[in-house]
């Protein structure tokens, strides 16, 4: 559920990057931070352990379109992928509006991808949410690895729900399909919000995006 602040006329959407450890969630969000103009984004907050792993979450706020006088903001979060940090993942998932599932394409990591996806479903279920309701996309990361699993198998494992999700072959270190995946999920989130609240759609022009409130 987005947070609507009537005083400051803001709607905040929460997008969570979910996936197994070392799949490239932080790299993805760091790339997004590096590419977005400073005027649209805030600082990238990254709480990492001494072992260079995400401890709590990475956070990146981004300004987006204006919907009926309300400026929308996207808050991008990542979760720690390590199995032991499940409580943290549950906390970060609270009130999530959209999910980008970052899967590791390496053969040896595929089992972890499946486990992480199940964990995502389980954690959503605990919050009375489901992937049937929440917009999500799949980002098959590390496609440049020589030992990457075929996409057909990844699709069989992860994109076999009744509602087919959009999936992207990505290379987060180089930025391939990183923005495409994020754009897809944000569009789904915005469309869902507009549909549910019977709002007028913003004009699909670049000006409406660039315009800041």
């Amino acid at each position, binding site marked *: 559920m987005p947070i609507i602040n009537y005083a400051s006329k803001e709607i905040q959407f929460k997008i969570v990057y979910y996936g197994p450890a070392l799949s490239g969630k932080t790299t993805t969000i760091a790339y997004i931070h590096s590419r977005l103009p400073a005027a649209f984004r805030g600082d990238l907050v990254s709480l990492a352990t001494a072992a260079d792993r995400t401890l709590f979450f990475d956070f990146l706020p981004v300004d987006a379109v204006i919907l009926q006088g309300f400026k929308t903001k996207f808050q991008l979060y990542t979760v720690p992928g390590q199995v032991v940090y499940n409580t943290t993942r549950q906390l970060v998932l609270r009130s999530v509006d959209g999910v980008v599932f970052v899967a590791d394409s390496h053969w040896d990591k595929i089992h972890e991808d*499946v486990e992480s*996806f199940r964990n995502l479903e389980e954690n959503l279920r605990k919050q009375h949410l489901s992937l049937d309701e929440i917009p999500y996309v799949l980002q098959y990361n590390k496609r440049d690895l020589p030992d990457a699993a075929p996409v057909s198998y990844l699709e069989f494992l992860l994109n*076999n729900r*009744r509602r087919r*999700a959009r999936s992207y072959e990505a290379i987060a270190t180089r930025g391939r399909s990183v923005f495409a995946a994020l754009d897809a999920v944000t569009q789904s989130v915005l469309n869902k919000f507009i549909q549910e609240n019977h709002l007028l*759609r913003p004009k699909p022009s670049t000006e409406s995006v660039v315009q800041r409130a």
Partner: protein
Amino acid sequence: MSFFSWFRSKSDKSEHDELELKSSNESPESHAGAEHPLFQSTRVPPPRLRETVPGSRIKSASPAEAGSAPKEGFRRPVRATVDVPLQVLLLQLPPEVTKPNIDIDPKRRVQIPRKSLQIDEAHQTAKVTFATIFASCPEIFSVPIAPLDQRTLEFNLPAWERPPLGDSGEQTTSPTTTAHGESTALTPAETREPATVSDRLPPLPAEQLVSETQPIPGPEKPDKAPLGGAARNGSEVPKTVRVALGPIIKNLPPGLQPSEPNALANKPGATIELPLELINSQLANGRVTIPFSTLLKSLPEDIKSHFLQADTAAEVAIPVKEILQDYPQDLLRPRADQEPEEALPAIATPFTGPAKEDTERFAHVPEEKEPEKVGSDSHQLELIEHPPTVSESSQPVSQEAPLAEEKQETPLSEQKPTAEPKPARNFSALQSIFLTDEALDLNKVVQKVGEFAGINSALFFAADGSLEGEPEKLGLTQSSVQLLSSLTHEVGQRVENLGFGQIETVTLGWKRELVSVFTRGESGFIVRHEKRPFKPGVREKICLVLSHICG
């Protein structure tokens, strides 16, 4: 006399207790009213038994109902599983997921976890996902069912699993409940589907249930599905899958390794056949393991003698990559009832522009190829001699194409016989690795590698012997760097000859520190780090930086 007086007093008490039970849900006001002599006939006493499970209190809607409430009697214990005849499930499952020839007795009962069922007590039916059936009885499936598969089938509850007609009224008012009394909210898709049985059915014997089961909406299936008969769709599904033996041997734990692992692993054409049903049940998890005894059975006789017969119960991992080489690809097709992606109206977001830019950029960049092997790397010289300027390095990552053009301009006659790394003038792609917006050049890259967690200092050496970084910090001279480089190269080649693949790091330890050498061709990084393994991700990052620098 004393016995009769005691008996009468006990009888009075029990009557009082029963009255108390009947008025368990009465409000205080009704209790107050019940004190009036007029209401004494309908007085409902508080419950006799304590509520041990929250929400388990027996509800009585009205005093009249309370008066006619069923007495506490024997209740059937709720089992954790529900037994369903295999025949019932087979008739409901679409033929494309079930095996054509099934040797199992169709009357055999499959135990399905009760918590995985959505039991509709009003209609005495239950819904279960294909994945749950697959987990309970994988033998009947011809294709693996992913745990995320949400296809469901609905079947009539067998007679022995139906609650008695008298029981159903006292459980709950919700039409869809699990046996534990939890309300299971139906998904929108499920709510759209009407129940296949419109009215409550009386208990029937299992044999009659088979003919009653209704088909679920979805994939068509023949009127009478043969159980254990001929192939349904005409195409023969192979029963085994052929897997190369080499990768399996390489993955074996040390205790199970054969006497000559390398010879066996590199033996050309050495394969084993594994039963498909064993693979199918696990393929959806992304990991496949088999008992060592099964592996031994599958081995050819000449290879089997090399293995010790110890610890046959140990689980052996079979690389999924090898399985999929021979695996029928038809079985990995997406589910038939999957809804396609929704076409949404486009809304421009701050991410639309960069997404388009990236798409265009990668449309022009040739496909990334597998990193070349040692010795085939290219030019590093120019990198050292002409470090990129700030303006050059701050260009977007997309400008990689000119490099290829420059290479083409060089006449073949002028090219050196040994391929050398081509100059990578653009380091902006490395900004995401170092989490910085700063414009990078080689000197800064080396400096930032030295700042990785656990790394004390770093040095980059090129094919021509030139160095970037601070060799003094590492306590190395140019000759010692050359020695380390050639040593790593030699070790790498020998290890590769042993069949262990390309080596990426060699670590040497002395005093209290470790020095690790990462090489790519004749170039590489030397890093000094604390006397402990690399912290997670650091080694991978250095490899990534090196591969970027060396092209």
